[in-house]
């Protein structure tokens, strides 16, 4: 019998990446005490232009990009270390997060020279922010069914349709929208393209969608005869599907898929005190061991990517395991905190924090590809479909 081997070759982050880690830590020690606690907990969901600009000044946004676009031409692994330090220290890194992770790399790979020059240097300075324009009211996991239509007209496209779950659209500069530029609804992957949309374009309306925790992260973005100039087409007309899947690959195996609520683990250590009973310490230790494992897997994937491989199945496995870990964490932590907290006062504080984490938890296994979509990808990798 033979199935594809699941291998996560152990990988060491190189010395220069570890040296960078020290620099990032020193920077954060200065920058973070000024940030409100709840903004730190929300980490890459917190919009803080001030923080993003300070990070940009250090050269830590778009660090892998060519120097001509404001980057530092450093390795993907240097970026990895910055990302995990931001999460491990609960930094308010939401403003530039999507631009740094996927929009910038997408423009670098498929965008034209004018787009790159106009936008990438601004991203690296921490002053240009992006939203993801993929999902629609009738297109979630089935992304190829998008209906937003961009009709070619003189000098550009006339766009009509609706995008939803568009995080940060009310504050960001741009959104990269997946739209149909030719053919009919039902043509699936054919005839899709990606457009660079300035969110201030006339005919683009942004309305809040409040999530269950009462937060305004999401929006509904409506296009009503919005004119998007031809110069804003990203890549080739009709290549949208290929481009969007490559964009999704950037989204899946990073540390934000298992460290989004890392603060819960840190607060759990705090609430259990310095000498927890064996039952509590063993459960704490098992949680730490699971997180360590996820980090080994994620670093191994980063190493494979640095080596020029495209480990799509491994990346899907990291996101599947990692997001379920993030869902388990507040539940397991709450149970042992209730029985083993050192003081009633500490417990009350912890339960407050845990309650917020519990409310956010359902989102982890939905955003960036649901558990079920990921398992479909893994099943295909196992030769089952």
């Amino acid at each position, binding site marked *: *019998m*033979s*199935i594809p*081997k*699941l*291998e*996560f*070759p*152990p990988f060491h982050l190189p010395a220069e990446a570890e040296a960078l*880690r020290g620099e990032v830590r020193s920077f954060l020690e200065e920058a973070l005490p000024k940030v409100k606690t709840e903004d730190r907990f929300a980490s890459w969901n917190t919009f803080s232009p001030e923080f993003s600009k300070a990070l940009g000044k250090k050269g830590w946004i778009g660090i892998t990009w060519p120097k001509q676009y404001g980057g530092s031409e450093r390795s993907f692994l240097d970026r990895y270390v910055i990302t*995990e330090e931001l999460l*491990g*220290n609960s930094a308010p890194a939401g403003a530039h997060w999507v631009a740094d992770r996927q929009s910038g790399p997408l423009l670098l790979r498929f965008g034209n020279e004018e787009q790159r020059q106009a936008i990438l240097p601004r991203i690296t300075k921490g002053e240009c922010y992006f939203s993801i324009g993929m999902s629609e009211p009738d297109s979630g996991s089935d992304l190829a069914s998008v209906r937003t239509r961009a009709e070619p007209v003189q000098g550009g496209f006339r766009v009509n349709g609706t995008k939803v779950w568009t995080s940060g659209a009310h504050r960001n500069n741009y959104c990269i929208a997946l739209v149909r530029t030719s053919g009919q609804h039902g043509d699936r992957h054919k005839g899709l393209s990606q457009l660079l949309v300035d969110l201030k374009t006339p005919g683009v309306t942004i309305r809040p969608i409040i999530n269950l925790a009462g937060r305004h992260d999401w929006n509904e973005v409506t296009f009503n005869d919005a004119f998007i100039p031809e110069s804003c087409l990203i890549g080739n007309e009709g290549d949208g599907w290929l481009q969007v899947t490559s964009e999704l690959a950037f989204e899946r195996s990073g540390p934000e898929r298992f460290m989004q609520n*890392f603060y819960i*683990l*840190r*607060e759990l*250590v*705090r609430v*259990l*005190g*310095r*000498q*927890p009973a*064996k039952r*509590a*310490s*063993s*459960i*704490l*230790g*098992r949680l*730490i*061991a*699971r*997180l*360590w*494992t*996820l*980090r*080994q*897997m994620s670093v*191994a994937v980063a190493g494979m990517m640095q080596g020029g491989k495209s480990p799509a199945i*491994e990346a899907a*496995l990291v996101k*599947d*395991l990692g997001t379920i870990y993030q869902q388990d964490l507040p539940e397991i932590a709450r149970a042992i905190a209730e029985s083993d907290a050192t003081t009633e006062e500490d417990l009350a504080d912890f339960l407050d924090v845990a309650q917020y984490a519990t409310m956010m938890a359902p989102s982890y296994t939905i955003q960036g590809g649901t558990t*079920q979509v*990921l*398992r*479909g990808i*893994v*099943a295909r990798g*196992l*030769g*089952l*479909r």
Partner: protein
Amino acid sequence: MDRETRDMLLETADRFFTDRCGRAVVNEVEKGVWPADLWKEIEEMGLPLIAVPEDRNGVGGTLADMLALLRLAGSHAVPVPLAETALGNLLIAAAGSEPKPGPATLVLGNLTLSGGRVSGKVERVPFASVADRFVTVAGNTLAVVAAANAKIDGQPSHAGEPYGTVTFDNAAAEFSGASPVSADRAFELAAVMRAMQMAGAADKVLATAVEYSKQRVQFGRSISTFQAIQHMLAELASYVAATIASAEAAARDADEGGLMDGGRFSIAAAKSQASDFAQRIAAISHQSMGAMGFTHEHILHHYTRRLWVWRRDFGSETFWGDKIGAAYAKAGPDALWASLSASKYAA
């Protein structure tokens, strides 16, 4: 050994285990039959001496080479104490002696050792009733005791392997000497050894369940075409992947950091992780294979029962979780990320 040599050895061993260590052999061991021929051939291949230096008549491999071999052995449910003997021989060589042939096992626990005599009792010793000699470390001294000088109460493990309780009553050692590997460290090395065997077994469980799902036809089609089954097996793959990734990372850290204390935290985390997911791996694989996989006839239980036994051997997830949790609690919340990102107990 270099990468190419290791790959060749693993390839040869893989073919050998496939040919000579099939279902019948594993089942015979469960009935109490010692597979003398299999052991003889394993010794002829030099496998128990893989991590013994050449100047002590060993193969000259590293700890990492040994652990890679044992992961492979785990994927074949090799029902003899290859792992225990290989690690025991490594420890004997490190203490300055030359290992003798014959199956050996590790007796690690609350023992006292003085003047070349050993006392104490250890339960659940793997392969206790078939080992020729017992390798023990107490404090910083290693001792080798012949089976004849110990009292052995055979209590087969739930995987049907000849485990048992070993009692030493002022037992004379055939060798004792200063050990660079402490008793605690020997236990850690045994833990990473089991974690790697668990990685092998987990890998085999996944392969078995995937293959079965393609062969098994219900409702007129192979069950692998049902989305419910596809998602179960994808979830199974995630637990198997975690087991493999953590065990491999610990094996690397143990090897690179040196025999005396390399990868202490990684080993604890990997054995905790492997033990933690053993049940999910067993549960999903059995559910996906229905009644067939629950029969003694099928090989699935060779692996799932070993996972259930091995998760307790040399520290369960509760044992290692406590080690990690106590150390991290002591270091406090602000040390958590620095320690974790350095794969260390405390920064």
